[in-house]
């Protein structure tokens, strides 16, 4: 390993991922600067970084999307490279080009790869043209006049998506074809609003599909490897809650086939840096869904079973180093599960909750990693994504990993804002999860899981005891009585 061509890294992100990137960069001997909006005052990444570059915007999100301001901050702080994390500017080819034009290193893929994979329609035909499997679909661009007819001809159920989309925004499942036109209109409105692009495409929806994705990593010298798959089928509103590796459903042959397909797609695209090829899997078949040209939220499960540091690999590859590993060098050991701790109420339809972190205690123990995104004292608002932290556990096998995850959840203390921690535990305890029999619609089909159970009589007694003991007025009432008895006693004598 040679010296890196830069000594300072600017992290253009927030929350847990900013802290996670800073940790690796510091370990590599880099100086770290984190871009931060005022709404994130008190966040743990700000303490961990060597310097904070304050950025401004009408909203926090607008600030983190302001590429000119972020590049200027990098220059001002002497950063030679920018890591975009996930979300925000991570899949913005214009930003990647601007970073390079400013003479800085973008820690991510080439702008060409971002462009190709960012346009879901182009990406899909690129993949299909090279003989990799894709789901039957229709794109609006091909001939807008016949779009609805072509969509109907695919046969239901259908999934309508904005072609510029990602992260589940604006996606709709249509089972009743009479509603197709209406759903298309709503998806178009959402696509227009989120991405400034109302173009749509529809594809056959695989019933009870499983979401399986493959981590790939490429360097500038033509090497592409995969680091195995992750299964992310436990979702609410198309957003992942639990991710694990290896997938409990794949056979050895299927695993090899899906991982080789992902590496093949990345190779065909001349892909560099970290990327994830997402597939939809159902009854032994899998289809290419999309490729995310960035580090994923759920990357730690891959790190735990492979013993790698994907952020370090990203930084080295971006600096022009070769990967230094071949496919045979990547070994997988044990089972890892990630749980996303969200500020949300499962019982109220997974709606976001707000508050202030009044107390936070991380879980510890063997095989437990806690990627923290908030610190004590921080306000939780709806200004950003509701993810507060990620709990990642590793064990020799899946059952051990689940048991460790449940113990770690029980030992996580986060007071002041309602979270999904209890829901995550119910989910892990469910027999279908234990059996690995889940799909992306599983949570919708199991609404009972979201409901908050009534506390047992034993718990109610504990809660009543703590409430009474912690309330000064109640203690004072009790303490006054023996004093009075004593006084009366003395007077009588």
């Amino acid at each position, binding site marked *: 390993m040679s010296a890196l061509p830069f000594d300072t890294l600017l992290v253009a992100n927030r929350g847990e991922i900013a802290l996670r990137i800073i940790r690796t960069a510091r370990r590599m001997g880099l100086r770290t600067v984190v871009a931060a909006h005022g709404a994130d005052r008190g966040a743990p990444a700000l303490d961990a970084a060597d310097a904070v570059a304050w950025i401004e915007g009408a909203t926090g999100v607008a600030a983190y999307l302001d590429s000119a301001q972020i590049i200027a901050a990098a220059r001002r702080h002497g950063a030679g490279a920018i890591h975009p994390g996930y979300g925000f500017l991570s899949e913005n080819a214009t930003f990647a080009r601007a970073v390079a034009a400013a003479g800085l290193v973008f820690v991510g893929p080439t702008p060409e790869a971002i462009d190709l994979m960012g346009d879901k329609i182009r990406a899909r035909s690129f993949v299909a043209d090279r003989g990799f499997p894709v789901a039957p679909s229709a794109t609006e661009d091909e001939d807008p006049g016949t779009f609805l007819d072509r969509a109907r001809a695919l046969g239901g159920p259908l999934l309508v998506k904005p072609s510029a989309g990602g992260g589940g925004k604006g996606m709709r499942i249509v089972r009743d074809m009479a509603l197709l036109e209406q759903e298309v209109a709503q998806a178009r409105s959402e696509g227009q*609003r989120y991405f400034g692009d109302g173009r749509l495409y529809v594809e056959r929806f695989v019933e009870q599909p499983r979401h399986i994705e493959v981590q790939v990593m490429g360097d500038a010298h033509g090497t592409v490897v995969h680091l195995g798959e992750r299964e992310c089928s436990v979702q609410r509103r198309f957003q992942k809650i639990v991710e694990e590796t290896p997938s409990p459903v794949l056979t050895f042959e299927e695993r090899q086939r899906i991982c080789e397909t992902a590496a093949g797609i990345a190779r065909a695209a001349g892909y560099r840096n970290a990327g994830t090829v997402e597939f939809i899997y159902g009854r032994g078949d899998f289809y290419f869904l999309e490729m995310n040209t960035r580090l994923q939220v759920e990357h730690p499960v891959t790190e735990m079973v492979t013993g790698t540091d994907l952020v370090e690999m990203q930084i080295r590859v971006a600096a022009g180093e070769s990967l230094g590993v071949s496919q045979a060098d990547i070994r997988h050991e044990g089972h890892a599960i990630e749980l996303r701790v969200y500020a949300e109420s499962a019982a109220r339809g997974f*709606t976001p909750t707000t508050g202030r972190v009044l107390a936070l205690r991380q879980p510890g123990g063997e095989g437990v990693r806690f990627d923290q995104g908030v610190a004590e004292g921080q306000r939780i608002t709806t200004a950003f994504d509701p993810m507060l932290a990620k709990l990642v556990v590793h064990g020799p096998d899946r059952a051990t990993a689940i048991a460790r995850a449940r113990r770690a959840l029980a030992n996580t203390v986060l007071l002041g804002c*309602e979270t999904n921690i209890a829901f995550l535990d119910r989910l892990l305890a469910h027999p279908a999860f234990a059996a690995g029999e889940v799909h992306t619609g599983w949570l919708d089909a199991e609404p009972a899981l979201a409901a908050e159970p009534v506390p047992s009589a034993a718990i109610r007694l504990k*809660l*009543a005891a*703590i409430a*009474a003991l912690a309330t000064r007025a109640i203690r004072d009432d*009790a303490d006054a009585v023996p004093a009075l008895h004593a006084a009366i006693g003395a007077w009588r004598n």
Partner: protein
Amino acid sequence: MRHAFDIAGTETEVWLERARDGYRLGGDAGRALVALLHRGGNTLLSLDGGEEPVHLVLDGELIHLHVAGGHYTLRHLDPARRFADAEAGGGADAARAPMPGTVVRVDVAVGDHVATGDPLVVIESMKLETTIRAWHDGTVSAVHVTAGQSFERDAVLVTLAAEA
């Protein structure tokens, strides 16, 4: 003075009496010998001889706590205030926000006549667009939000009046 807490949606009356090494708990949740112990920077709940760690934070009338692997928020119920809330909340013909979010669009103005099912306001929260529709025929008597505005859960969005 009687004290009650909202414990998981149930009004629970509690009281304490001084006992030799702590207190005797009484009330709707049951009876037990209890104490909070502070040992080595940790707080322990002692209940009928058993001890277990507790994390708790007082926040006004709320008690946030973690015990036995679970998180709970209890509300200290002040009888006088509860009565006032019930008076004020009675009979308001209003749509309240089911979750915190942002107003995408307002489709009506004060004085508009609306029929059941007419769109009133489109709100967005965490990637999900929801249309708030008229729940009966009537007249819009107040619009409490504007496009682009963000709001908390339970915020009043639109008030209707029955058709005269």
